């Protein structure tokens, strides 16, 4: 199957991006280099094209009840113009996808992972009744994310709104170049940042406007540093840290799993897991030199106790870091374990998340 292109494809080519196929889309993995882009997001700002992500609209007079039954977080707690991090599970409590719910005045928008768009859509359709309408607008809605401490100053120059009033996980609509676009105070980096949802013409214009007005304060940033930035915050990635065989409790998503007086798809099984589960997600920092990678074995006294679900070099910490799934009785902060890297045991220790603690997320 030929991979798709986002409306910003030509911009990436002109910026000399290294392009890769990601979830069926031609996406920029890096422009100047992962480390340089990573550090620029932490110190100033980066601009990401994440148009490959999916948008599913849920409307109808029973939309709230429907989503309350489909999602693990309590969607009834959020007000209009609130966003909420959540996940959808199957009957076994396995994670179908993690996602963000946006509550608009007349509908909800679910922003889902690119690789799971069709699976999510099919699952929602299979579970809906006549009072709910579901539309897949993934081909029509694009996203760019501006992330980093300078993001507010730069974006403020382009819209007529006081962005300092837009709190974390709130969103708004604003006119831009003849259409209405959505700006939300969300991101995947741990820094102050905004995600902008718009149609093709508006997304191209705002991408160019941000880079032009940014005056060197903002660099285009690729999916490579998106991954290192999210890893440093211990944000999970579907397909690595989350999948249909993991449940939200062991995957570290207890904080969004609202079981009290709620029943949702998978909640019975998740209640059972909560009483009796074996594995836990932990943050690992390398002591020895070496970079932990997905699927590497984690050992204690030569006995396998788990495996790495995501691993990388951390540009901010200048060492290898990983998210691992290990036996929960051994998941103690400060414990020293071994990661097996090319048949050699390399020491690492369990640390308290996040790996990077100076993010400007809430500033």
């Amino acid at each position, binding site marked *: 199957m030929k991979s798709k292109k986002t409306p910003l494809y030509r911009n990436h080519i002109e910026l000399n991006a290294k392009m890769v196929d990601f979830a069926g889309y031609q996406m920029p993995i890096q422009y100047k280099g992962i*480390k340089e882009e990573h550090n620029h997001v932490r110190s100033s700002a980066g601009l990401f094209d994440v148009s490959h992500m999916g948008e599913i609209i849920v409307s109808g007079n029973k939309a709230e009840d429907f989503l309350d039954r489909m999602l693990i977080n309590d969607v009834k707690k959020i007000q209009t113009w609130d966003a909420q991090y959540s996940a959808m599970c199957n009957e076994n409590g396995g994670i179908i996808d993690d996602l963000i719910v946006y509550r608009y005045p007349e509908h909800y928008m679910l922003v889902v992972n690119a690789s799971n768009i069709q699976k999510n859509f099919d699952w929602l359709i299979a579970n809906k009744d006549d009072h709910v309408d579901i539309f897949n607008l993934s081909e029509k809605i694009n996203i760019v994310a501006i992330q980093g401490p300078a993001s507010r100053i730069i974006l403020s120059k382009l819209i007529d709104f006081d962005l300092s009033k837009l709190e974390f996980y709130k969103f708004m609509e604003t006119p831009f170049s003849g259409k209405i676009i959505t700006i939300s105070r969300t991101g995947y980096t741990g820094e102050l940042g905004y995600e902008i949802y718009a149609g093709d013409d508006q997304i191209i214009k705002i991408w160019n406007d941000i880079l032009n007005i940014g005056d060197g304060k903002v660099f285009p940033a690729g999916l490579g540093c998106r991954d290192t930035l999210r890893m440093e915050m211990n944000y999970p990635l579907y397909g690595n840290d989350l999948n249909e065989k993991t449940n939200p409790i062991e995957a570290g998503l207890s904080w969004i799993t609202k079981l009290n007086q709620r029943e949702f798809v998978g909640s019975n099984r998740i209640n059972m897991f909560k009483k009796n589960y074996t594995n836990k997600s932990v943050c690992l920092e390398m002591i020895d*030199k070496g*970079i932990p990678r997905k699927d590497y074995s984690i050992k204690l006294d030569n006995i396998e106790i788990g495996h790495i679900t995501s691993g*990388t070099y951390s540009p901010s910490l200048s060492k*290898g870091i990983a998210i691992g799934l290990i036996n929960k009785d051994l998941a103690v902060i400060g414990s020293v374990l071994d990661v097996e890297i090319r048949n050699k045991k390399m020491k690492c220790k369990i640390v308290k998340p996040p790996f990077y603690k100076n993010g400007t997320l809430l500033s």
Partner: protein
Amino acid sequence: MDHKKFKFTKDHEWLNLQEDLAIVGITDYAQSQLGDIVFVEMPELSSKLTASESFGAIEAVKTVADLFAPVSGKVIEINENLDTSPDLINSDPYNKGWIVKLKINNNDEINQLMNYDEYQEFTLDN
């Protein structure tokens, strides 16, 4: 030294041959494919390498690549600067980014290697 006079392998390594010694590194093409290099796993000094077997690894941010011995031989020197500055491989792959120096066992193995023009053609085909 002009890297156009080096020998090259299908694993994107270069050899600068000086009689029975070879300085070994990875090519500019290889470093650009890997991206930011953050760690080089080196062989032990004096260890004996067998042609096409793995003797170490190059870790980039996103990925890891094995280093394969271009010819059989003994490791007589390793580039210790790569311990603190592995990015020398990115910035200067044919010179300061060299990886190991080998004493070659068998000169016949050198005949299997590509010259610069052959390597250029090989990377275009890939």
